C-alpha cells in the first residue's frame, strides 16, 4: 500500500512524532511504500539541525534525516515553518521546505494518509 504521513506535533513534547516514526518503520518493514512525510503545525520543529538532545536519548531530527536519505520525500510546510522561524538554513539534510500543495499531492497519490497528533 502507498502511504503518506502527516505529523502535527513538535518533537519530545508529544509522542506523535515517535509514533509516526515507529509506524513508518513498521510499514517499511512490511513492504509498504511511503509516498511522503509532511510536517505541519509545530511538527516543523522535528527537523531542525539545531536540535541537540542528550546522547543517551533518541535524536529525532537525525532519525527523520536518515529516512530522507532512503529516498522518502520529507516536506516541511513553508507557511507553518515561516511562522515558527524554521528556514532552509536550519534544516537537517534530506528534508525540504515546500507548500501545502505537496501535502495535497501526497493525499491524492497515497492510498491512505495517516495523521499523527492531537
Amino acid at each position, binding site marked *: 500500500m502507498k502511504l503518506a504521513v*502527516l505529523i502535527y506535533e513538535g518533537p519530545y513534547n508529544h509522542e506523535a512524532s515517535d509514533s509516526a516514526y515507529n509506524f513508518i518503520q513498521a510499514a517499511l518493514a512490511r513492504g509498504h511504500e511511503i509516498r511522503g512525510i509532511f510536517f505541519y503545525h509545530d511538527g516543523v520543529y522535528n527537523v531542525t539541525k539545531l536540535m541537540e538532545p542528550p546522547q543517551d536519548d533518541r535524536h529525532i531530527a537525525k532519525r527523520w534525516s536518515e529516512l530522507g536519505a532512503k529516498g522518502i520525500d520529507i516536506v516541511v510546510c513553508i507557511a507553518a515553518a515561516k511562522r515558527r522561524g524554521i528556514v532552509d538554513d536550519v534544516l537537517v539534510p534530506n528534508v525540504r521546505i515546500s*507548500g*501545502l*500543495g505537496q501535502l*495535497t*499531492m501526497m*493525499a*491524492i497519490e497515497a492510498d491512505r*494518509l495517516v495523521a499523527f497528533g*492531537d
Partner: protein
Amino acid sequence: MSGGEVKKIMFTVRKAPHGSIYVYEGLEVKLIMAAYDADISVVFMDDGVFALKEGQNTKELGIKGFAATYGAMVDYEISKIYVDRQSMEERGMSEDDLLVIGEDEDTEEPIKPQVVDAAEIAAMMAEQHNILVF
C-alpha cells in the same frame, strides 16, 4: 492517481477555533486543496462547531480572527460543508447561530453549513479515501 479516480478527502474540524492554531492552519489546508482535483468535504463536530459561530470577535485575544475566511471555502467551490447536530446541541448552538459562509449564485440566498446527524457523518466517512483531522 490510482485508476484516475477522483480522491474523496474529508476534513474534520473538532477543536475550538481559538486557543490553538490547529483550526486556522487547517483552514489553510482546505483552501489549498480546493485548487486540486479532489472531492473535498468538511465536517465540523465536537468543539469544532464553535468555529462556525456567528459574531466571533478575537480583538481582545490579540489574535487574528479568521471566521470571515470560511466564506472563502465556498468561493473556492468547496460546497460540502457540514456541521454535526448533536455537537451543536450539546454546546447550546442552533442553526440560527451558524455563520453565513456565502450566498447562492442564482438566488442570492445565504449559504450556511448543512446540519447533519452522526449517522450521516458516519456514512460519509465510510466513503472517503482520506480523512484529515484538525
